[in-house]
């Protein structure tokens, strides 16, 4: 019974992975990858690790994959075309090398003698939230804190990379009629021939930068 379930989820995982690699439309690849994640979460539950399964669903499928799908949709990524000409041999070569890699791993697995392991049972206490939480906050506190700093770095990095316009604050609210000015008005070190555009907050700031003294009602901002 459990072996049947394992075969089902394993077949689903491998099938979705193959679909992901074979698809040329990146959105279909993303959906296949979501299928892989779901089947892996089911496998984690079979291994009596329910907390990790739930965290996998929340983090990978709820956060990372929507981000990837957003990027695919916003950048309007096109369907991949086949390689032409001299590089056509790369795909079969990659498949052959993948088989070689798998053969090596299978050899290692097969040449290990069967050692005595207790099979995973549903009454195992290892995957329970309580034990993970205890270990995370007592024995493995340092990796936990370092990971939180890593996440902070990732947030700052992602915000910096996604920002446009250089020196303007990311709190800028876009209102209709935002002005576009040449970059040299904001950043004096850039030459006048640099025609990259800068978006400013409001007509106020644009007016200020252009040298006009305009008094607008401040209540309009809120």
């Amino acid at each position, binding site marked *: 019974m459990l072996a049947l379930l394992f075969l089902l989820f394993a077949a689903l995982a491998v099938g979705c992975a193959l679909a992901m690699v074979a698809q040329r439309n990146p959105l279909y690849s993303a*959906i296949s990858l979501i299928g892989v994640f779901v089947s892996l979460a089911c496998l984690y539950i079979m291994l009596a690790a329910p907390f990790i399964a*739930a965290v996998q*669903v929340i983090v990978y*499928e*709820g*956060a990372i994959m929507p981000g990837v799908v957003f990027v695919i*949709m916003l950048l309007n990524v096109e369907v991949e075309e086949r390689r032409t000409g001299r590089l056509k041999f790369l795909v079969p070569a990659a498949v052959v090398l993948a088989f070689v890699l798998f053969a090596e791993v299978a050899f290692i697995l097969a040449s290990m003698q069967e050692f005595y392991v207790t099979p995973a049972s549903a009454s195992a206490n290892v995957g329970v939230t309580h034990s993970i939480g205890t270990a995370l906050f007592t024995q493995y506190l340092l990796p936990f804190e370092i990971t939180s700093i890593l996440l902070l770095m990732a947030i700052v990095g992602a915000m910096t990379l996604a920002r446009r316009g250089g020196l303007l604050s990311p709190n800028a609210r876009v209102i209709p009629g935002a002005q576009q000015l040449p970059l040299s008005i904001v950043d004096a070190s850039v030459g006048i021939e640099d025609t990259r555009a800068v978006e400013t907050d409001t007509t106020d700031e644009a007016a200020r930068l252009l040298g006009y003294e305009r008094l607008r009602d401040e209540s309009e901002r809120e």
Partner: protein
Amino acid sequence: MDTALDIGLKLVAITVAFVVVLLIVAYTVLAERRVLGFIQGRLGPNRVGYGGVLQPFADLLKFILKEDIVPDKSTRFIYFLAPVIATMAALMTMIVYPFGPEIRIPFTGITIPLTITRLDIGLLYVLGVTSVGVYGIMLAGWSSNNKYSLMGGLRSSAQMISYELALGLSLIGVIMLAGTLDLGQIVEMQSGWHGTRWFIIFQPLGFIVYLTAAIAETNRVPFDLPEAETELVAGFHTEYSAMKFALFFLAEYINMFTVSMLATTLFLGGWNVPFAEDIFGRGTFLFGLVSAIGFLLKVVFFLFLYIWLRGTLPRFRFDQLMSFGWRILLPLALLSIFITATLIFLFPNL
């Protein structure tokens, strides 16, 4: 053969829960139209059946018989997949809620628990499955090949992802108080002392943050800009007609129902009716019945609150919505966690 009987019972329980949920959701739609009518000074639909009671079935018939239009240039597979994902994610959360205590059927002596299943990680499961519901909206917006749908889909999914954070964080206070993620356990911890141990008393800030985030998660007024008819035609479900639109509609109302049930379970004590224990005694059939009815009444109260808000409040603009979620709600949720943790540390005898 024990497992076959168990599986059979679970299937029966799932079917019953499914039917009950669909009926409640259908009548929520009707209730919304009538209550909105009363708020706005008009009658709602009251022709079909006595006082409009058969209206949901008329609506269902209309949806089934309508022409199913598929836009020509849409990606067909994803177009058909999107409402399925939305509805599936909405329905899958049903299985962990405790609808009542263990009920003993009077003449047979069988005790059945009024939950479909008890998961150790019940709350995490609910949060995970509602995260998957975002895909339905994103893929619907994309696959319709329509500017308005794409904008509506992207805005709606950005809103849902942003408010999921505040939602999850506001529940951490409850988890800290209860010490467990199991929903049945959380309800049982709120029994006793006749309603004074309900978590809403210990977590008022968490409750308000949760309710606001939940209203934003389900794309309801005042956070319903992505699907308002005056804004983006109809948002992400512009190009959907007939049964597929009915699935989206259904998914939204089931989400409302789910969120109301979660609020009832976590903050209002689930199936605990204040003096039912003294009157009926635990474990009897009447106690179970009264508790289940009490649960239902609390959920209906939250649904009424949703409808009331829809009739009363104007809607947020999208940038106001996003800045509210990130700049006000998320710090409030963190503040609630901080206060709860401090109080638990100082007074550990609760």
